């Protein structure tokens, strides 16, 4: 059964990916998609698929996977099922960076200014959190992350408060909702290296996370360098989640929920839960994106909003169920 987890999740993602290529303001038939992909001649269908739907599909997979992975790593590292990727300040740092780009008008003059500012914001926020917690342990890392997140959120609120015109405020709010609409290959190219770097660093934490099942002291006695593990998780989250937030805006809940869904599939081993959590994260974001497309352009449902609206009640159910199961 456990051997089937990864293949089954991959199959689910492939099915969702196919749906994602078909769905949109203009619905395409599978035959049209296949023909357009096979035929190198430029056509409207090919343009639509290659330049609009494919980057969006790739982006949702990357973003979902890194959110799920980072969530699983942080929950394992902190041994707390309520940990999520935003905890260390990456998401709110990215939000502040993006807001600065929009607020000062860089976003209007250069297309990729918002994601670049967001990425820098995420790295700076996590860097500060790390500097603040360098001498302390895991708890001081959480506290520093929360402090930096709060500061960054205060900055976002300040920008909204002082926004020169209602349009700037609207643009900021829209960005904060998180969306995959109108993303291009440029966004993929910008985010991919950081997400790949982040995912690689996070993948190396698996063995250490397993040992942390026994607590920090026993893990150290087994030869696990807990401070190195913390650093890997921190840099991996900063690069990966920072880049993900930079290109999509704030997408919550995925990093919180995906590990919860993954753990029972692998006997609750935190290290073994990393790969399924990444796949589940990818599937969740992809499914939500397909749903926003099905809802249609008229409704213009934002990805982050949909995930939050569906995710919050689901998480509530999860918490109630965990309370029953836990001793």
């Amino acid at each position, binding site marked *: 059964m456990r051997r089937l987890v990864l293949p089954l999740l991959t199959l689910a993602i492939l099915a969702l990916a196919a749906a994602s290529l078909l769905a949109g303001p203009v619905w395409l038939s599978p035959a049209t998609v296949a023909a357009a992909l096979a035929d190198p001649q430029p056509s409207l269908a090919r343009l639509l698929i290659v330049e609009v739907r494919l980057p969006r599909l790739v982006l949702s997979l990357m973003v979902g996977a890194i959110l799920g992975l980072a969530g699983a790593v942080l929950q394992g590292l902190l*041994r707390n099922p309520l940990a999520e990727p935003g905890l260390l300040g990456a998401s709110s740092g990215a939000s502040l960076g993006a807001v600065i780009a929009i607020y000062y008008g860089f976003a209007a003059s250069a297309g990729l200014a918002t994601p670049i500012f967001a990425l820098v914001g995420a790295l700076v926020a996590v860097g500060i959190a790390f500097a603040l917690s360098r001498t302390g342990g895991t708890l001081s890392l959480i506290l520093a992350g929360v402090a930096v997140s709060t500061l960054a959120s205060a900055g976002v609120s300040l920008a909204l408060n002082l926004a020169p015109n209602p349009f700037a405020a609207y643009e900021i709010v829209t960005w904060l909702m998180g969306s995959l609409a109108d993303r291009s290959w440029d966004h993929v190219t910008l985010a991919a290296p950081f997400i790949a770097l982040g995912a690689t660093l996070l993948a190396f934490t698996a063995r250490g996370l397993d040992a942390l099942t*026994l607590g920090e002291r*026993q893990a150290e006695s087994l030869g*696990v360098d807990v401070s190195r593990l913390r650093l890997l998780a921190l840099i991996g989250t900063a690069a990966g989640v920072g880049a993900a937030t930079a290109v999509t805006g704030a997408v919550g809940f995925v990093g919180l929920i995906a590990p919860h869904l993954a753990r029972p599939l692998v006997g609750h081993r935190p290290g073994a839960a990393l790969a399924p959590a990444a796949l589940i994260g990818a599937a969740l974001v992809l499914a939500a994106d397909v749903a926003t497309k099905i809802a249609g352009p008229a409704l213009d449902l934002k990805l982050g909003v949909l995930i939050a609206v569906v995710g919050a009640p689901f998480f509530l159910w999860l918490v109630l169920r965990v309370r029953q199961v836990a001793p």
Partner: protein
Amino acid sequence: MTRLALGGITHRRGARTVLAGVDAAFESGRLTAVIGPNGAGKSTLLAIAAGLLRPDAGTITLDERAIRAIPPRELAAVRAYLPQSPRAEWPVRVERLVALGLSQHLPVFGPLPGRWRLAVSGALARFDLIALRDRPATRLSGGELARAMLARAVVGEPRVLIVDEPSAGLDPRHAHEAARQLRALADDGCAVVVALHDLDLVSRIADDVVALKDGRLHASGPAEAVLTEPTLGALYDMPVRVDRAGGRASVRFGD
């Protein structure tokens, strides 16, 4: 033959001196009990002996080699450490929990080398855990979890085993069972160091006793030499009666 030696260990936490110039040595085949009142520095001494805490002054050598110079994974293959009241953070199966004791033998990626796969079953059998092997570790009783954690500690066949208060929270039967297992490990050639409060248990299993008081070495030596009325009375600041019957001391506090 393995020898873990501590020399002149001094450790401060803030302004408080937790340990002051403590010497001790632990050898293969011998079980050393570390005793003393609460706050005497027993746990700190054990963590330092395990190489997990760097003392402010003093030397720790494992077979004449400074413990700081031994790479963590290599050290983990030689000595096992079990802190006070260990708990499982996730509901992993007992078998998996025990297998975590082999983490130091795992390659970065890929499965466990063949020689160690049988070790898990052996450790489960030794600690009477075969029936519980598929139970989530978070749903074990206190005694069962203590057994599982001991199995976790010894599954890698350590040459030095350091255990902090294995009998805390255990009923008399399970406390004796844990003590019996530790004694058996020492008889198999392991150097066992164990912090204990139960002095009857100490007299039952210990070869040597290290008595700490206020961070200083109060007494140390063979168990029968340390477990005496004057030494224990001064150690705990309390009247004490030691009855020796059948080679085993029975310790009673109070008048």
